[in-house]
């Protein structure tokens, strides 16, 4: 008892009071944030979710469960027809990522704060492209390219490439900003051309992080490629669309499982490859 009393006495009353005050303030902040979020969500539910939903169509909880039940069991007879679309999806992701990588390298070189080969205008342009690429959803990119080059895998590839530029080039630009400039300086001092400097001083330093970023992005791009078929870029998305139009619920589940399988395999490969690089 006397031991505890000693410990309590040590910080003294002002410290204890400060501690209590900070604690109380923390609680009040937490409470305020929770109330604010609660109010916002009540407003959102009242204003949008309730009026924006067709509740009568659902016809009660049991009917909704029945609705989900229609998706089961999956239809395995469809599987053989899904190999070609699955391959297409994977290939679209690969080519899209590669094209995106080429574009990203250019954008990253322009947008790296320590190089700025084209000065401030190039830097601003590159940073703008990065933001634009990320803020436009892949569906919208696909929409733009479908209207430019027509339906097909090409539009999907271009959409994925443009969507990838934001993330890949941002990481690459950060990597360029961290590179050892002395290596670049050595090549400049001996009269190497800018191309040689990029090839022999910058790229070797970017290779590990660049490859690992690309593999990661490819993994994400499989996921995106699977959805681009919905707006006309082929692959598993198209199969999904076909089952949807035919109202074949069991088929929809099969395609979903196929997409899941492709993505999980892609993720496993991606993790393995990145582990080997790092």
């Amino acid at each position, binding site marked *: 008892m006397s031991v505890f009393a000693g410990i309590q006495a040590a910080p003294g009353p002002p410290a204890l009071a400060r501690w209590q005050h900070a604690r109380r303030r923390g609680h009040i902040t937490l409470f305020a944030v929770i109330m604010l979020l609660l109010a916002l969500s009540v407003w959102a539910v009242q204003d949008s979710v309730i009026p924006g939903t067709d509740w009568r169509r659902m016809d009660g909880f049991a009917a909704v469960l029945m609705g989900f039940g229609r998706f089961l069991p999956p239809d395995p007879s469809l599987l053989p027809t899904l190999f070609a679309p699955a391959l297409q999806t994977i290939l679209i992701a690969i080519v899209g990522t590669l094209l995106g990588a080429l574009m990203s390298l250019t954008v990253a070189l322009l947008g790296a704060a320590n190089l700025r080969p084209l000065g401030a205008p190039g830097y601003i342009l590159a940073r703008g492209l990065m933001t634009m690429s990320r803020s436009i959803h892949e569906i919208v990119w696909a929409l733009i390219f479908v209207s430019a080059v027509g339906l097909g895998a090409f539009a999907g590839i271009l959409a994925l490439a443009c969507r990838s530029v934001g993330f890949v080039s941002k990481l690459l630009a950060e990597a360029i900003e961290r590179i050892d400039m002395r290596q670049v300086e050595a090549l400049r001092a001996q009269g190497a*051309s800018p191309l040689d400097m990029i090839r022999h001083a910058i790229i070797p330093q970017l290779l590990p992080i660049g490859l690992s970023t690309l593999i990661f992005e490819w993994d994400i791009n499989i996921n995106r490629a699977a959805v681009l078929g919905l707006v006309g870029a082929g692959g598993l998305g198209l199969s999904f669309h076909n089952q949807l139009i035919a109202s074949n619920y069991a088929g929809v589940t099969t395609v979903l499982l196929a997409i899941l399988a492709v993505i999980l395999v892609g993720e496993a490969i991606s993790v393995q490859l990145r582990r080997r690089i790092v």
Partner: protein
Amino acid sequence: MENLHVRYPGATEDVLRGVRLSLAPREFVAVIGASGSGKSTLLRAINRLVEPSAGSIRLGDIEVTTLRGRTLRQCRRRMGMIFQEFNLIERYRVLDNVLLGRVGSQSALRALFAMYPAAMIGEAASLLDRVGLGEFLDQRVDALSGGQRQRVGICRALFQSPELLLVDEPTSSLDPRIANDIMELIRDLALESGVAAICNIHDVALARRFASRVIALREGVVVYDGPFDALDETALGGIYAVTDRSQL
């Protein structure tokens, strides 16, 4: 190569204020001075890693300060540079680093694939053997020790077949015990290939041992230029006035 004039009145930043010096062929000159006296800036101005704000630099009969783009690169190929921190491509092999010394003179396609003629590779290999790295040709640079790396850096600079060697504090990042060896190597190789060298060095004892002529910089101004013998303790004290004399 005939003469090299550097006049460099730094109007804006005043790192170098009206430096004027000339080098004869085959000459080995040491530049001494306290840190911040402008030694590095001087070297970097010669091959235009730093832009001189005024003045002129001449290599042979070429005016370096007005060169741009391609001609500047061609001129830089005639000047080899050895760096304090080696500045090697860490992920490349030793041989490739040395071969990079001539990447600028290769065709763009060859440079892209790092292809070099067999004779050139043989040349690089025997140069590396000369500095005692014959065993390490096929190793990556990041596996080497500091002294070995600086040898690679020396080979890369010499492999350019330069007319002038710019040497920036070659031993400051190294173990003091091997500093002597490295300096000896640089001087011998410079003599063998008949290259003039200008070498920044903060260690006066080391400079005294290897250089015939010394240039002292203080706050961007040449305060001494001549043989070492005429440089006595009091003069050195003036050069290093701001810094601690015990380090001499």
